[in-house]
């Protein structure tokens, strides 16, 4: 009976019902879209960084992370000792990294030398996509950052001279024809990156068969810790670090931004909360006479409250459902087709090393969290009509 009355009551004033439901729905919609966008940008940032820098997991010789020198590298062939069978592991890439002086003509500059398996790297970090000039696949040439190329006035076909200290202090000297020029969004990298085929780099550093890191990519980032615990068994030669451990700055940046976003969401909750409260207030006011009649003919206040509570519950569910239904196609669409930014925004983002796109995350948790939060807010505000009914004075109500 309460349900029947409540159901009919909410359809009695269709306009008010739609206003209330749509303000609740709008909150859910907006919060879902906003959060999906936020999480999407994190996912993208993490994905970029993980692919380019560390992998979800990085395997190193035990001392390497504290002292990133060639002496703390390890033989690539010992990778067979790792448990690479976990189903989440998509692939891994060996890398050897160290610094060198790069010179051409009368110019010299510090450079970050990375020896990579070019074919694997093309899939892992999409390095090939950064190529602006020349060719990517090279047997003995170098791929250099565009900034470095400009500084040294060195182009495709010219010969780059590298000078460094190699494995266990040997002298490392080499000459490499420039096969291609890569364009990196991050200026630091653009002005210092030199990529060599893995074998060439190992020879240059006098570190045959050695690598400084083996980076592993997972299909499910949430499995990182689980894979980490299995990856190296109980080796006392290697360690496997997670991307969070290797990039604390990124984690912190994301956290900071996340809390910033949360503040936005709370502001939204506040604004919407007032809206919802307004409609509840209006509803209570408008129906005071009716409540008075019901109470006078013998409907206990508790029962009137139950009826109104069901109405509020129905309304809130309706609103949340509307919001979720409206948000899901949009989020799915932009998840599948990230927004491409153009103009100044795009330029600014590229300058800071981000791709100029706005990706969305598709995470059911977002929908669930926002749906529940706003439902709870609506239900909390529903306490007001309950109190108003509790305080109802029949005589006053009948005069409304």
């Amino acid at each position, binding site marked *: *009976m309460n349900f029947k*009355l409540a159901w*009919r*009551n909410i*359809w*009695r004033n269709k306009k008010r019902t739609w206003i209330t439901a749509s303000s609740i729905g709008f909150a859910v919609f907006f919060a879902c879209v906003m959060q999906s966008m936020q999480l999407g940008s994190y996912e993208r940032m993490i994905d970029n960084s993980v692919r380019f820098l560390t992998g979800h997991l990085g395997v190193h010789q035990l001392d390497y992370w504290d002292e990133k020198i060639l002496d703390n590298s390890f033989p690539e062939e010992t990778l067979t000792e790792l448990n690479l069978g976990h189903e989440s592991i998509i692939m891994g890439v060996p890398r050897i990294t160290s610094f060198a002086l790069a010179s051409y003509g009368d110019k010299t500059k510090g450079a970050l030398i990375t020896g990579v398996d070019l074919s694997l790297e093309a899939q892992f970090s999409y390095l090939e996509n950064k190529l602006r000039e020349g060719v990517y696949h090279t047997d003995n040439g170098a791929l250099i950052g565009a900034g470095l190329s400009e500084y040294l006035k060195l182009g495709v076909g010219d010969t780059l001279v590298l000078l460094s200290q190699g494995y266990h202090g040997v002298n490392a000297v080499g000459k490499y024809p420039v096969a291609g020029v890569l364009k990196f969004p991050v200026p630091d990298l653009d002005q210092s990156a030199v990529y060599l085929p893995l074998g060439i780099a190992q020879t240059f550093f006098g570190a045959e068969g050695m690598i400084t890191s083996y980076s592993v990519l997972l299909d499910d980032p949430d499995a990182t810790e689980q894979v980490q615990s299995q990856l190296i068994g109980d080796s006392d030669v290697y360690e496997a670090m997670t991307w969070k451990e290797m990039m604390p700055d990124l984690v912190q940046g994301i956290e900071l931004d996340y809390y910033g976003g949360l503040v936005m969401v709370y502001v939204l909750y506040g604004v919407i909360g007032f809206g919802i409260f307004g409609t509840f207030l209006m509803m209570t006011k408008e129906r005071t*006479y*009716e409540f008075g*009649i*019901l*109470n*006078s*003919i*013998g*409907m*206990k*206040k*508790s*029962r009137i409250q139950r009826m109104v509570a069901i109405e509020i519950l129905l309304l809130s569910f309706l609103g949340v459902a509307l919001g979720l239904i409206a948000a899901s196609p949009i989020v799915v669409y932009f998840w599948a087709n990230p927004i491409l930014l153009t103009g100044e925004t795009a330029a600014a983002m590229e300058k800071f090393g981000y791709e100029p796109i706005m990706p969305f995350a598709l995470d059911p948790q977002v929908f669930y969290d926002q749906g529940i939060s706003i439902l709870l807010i609506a239900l909390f505000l529903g306490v007001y009509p309950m109190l108003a009914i509790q305080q109802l004075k*029949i*005589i006053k109500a*009948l005069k409304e």
Partner: protein
Amino acid sequence: MSVIEAKSVSKIYNPDTIPVHAINDVSLTIEEGEFTAIVGPSGCGKTTLLNMIGGLDSVSEGHISVSGVNIADLNEAALTDFRLKNIGFVFQSYNLIPVLTAKENVEFVMLLQQSHQSAMDERADELLTKMGIKEVSQRRPAELSGGQQQRVAVARALASKPKFILADEPTANLDSHSTESLLDIMAKMNEEEKATFIFSTHDQRVIDKARRIITLEDGRIVSDEKK
């Protein structure tokens, strides 16, 4: 035993600011089966008196007992329940539940008393037939004329066979034809259902139909005549 006994009842509104003596020292007894009109000029205290008798408002002084129960002794929830079981209400206007059909409105008070569906059905049909509005029983209040709405209201008030029915100016919003027929129906119910009616009115035609007329002036009973 009398249905209603009011002893030296007074009502003072706003006793702390500008006191309004709406009812002054009113005593009266209503017996079962009465068909009584409370009359008097606007502001004389008719509504106030009916509200106190119906347990909708408290008395300032004196006391009112209904079927031997002093209603001032009941707490709010118990009083609501007491109204449900003992008193039928008809108000001046719009007092049906807008989202329920005429029949559902009549069943409503029985429903609150947890009557059986079959009993409710039977009683509602019976009353709606007696009221001559059986054919509109599936309509909602908005689809009924004022006169029809008031008949539904009377049917609802009668549904659970209360001790008495209070009607505060039940015909104030009705035209003369509807007024006449509503009164005839109330009189008929008074006969057939042995229902006790107490109603307030300004309307001379309504007053003419009453069998007892209590006249109020400035919150006091100035005459009480039985026909």
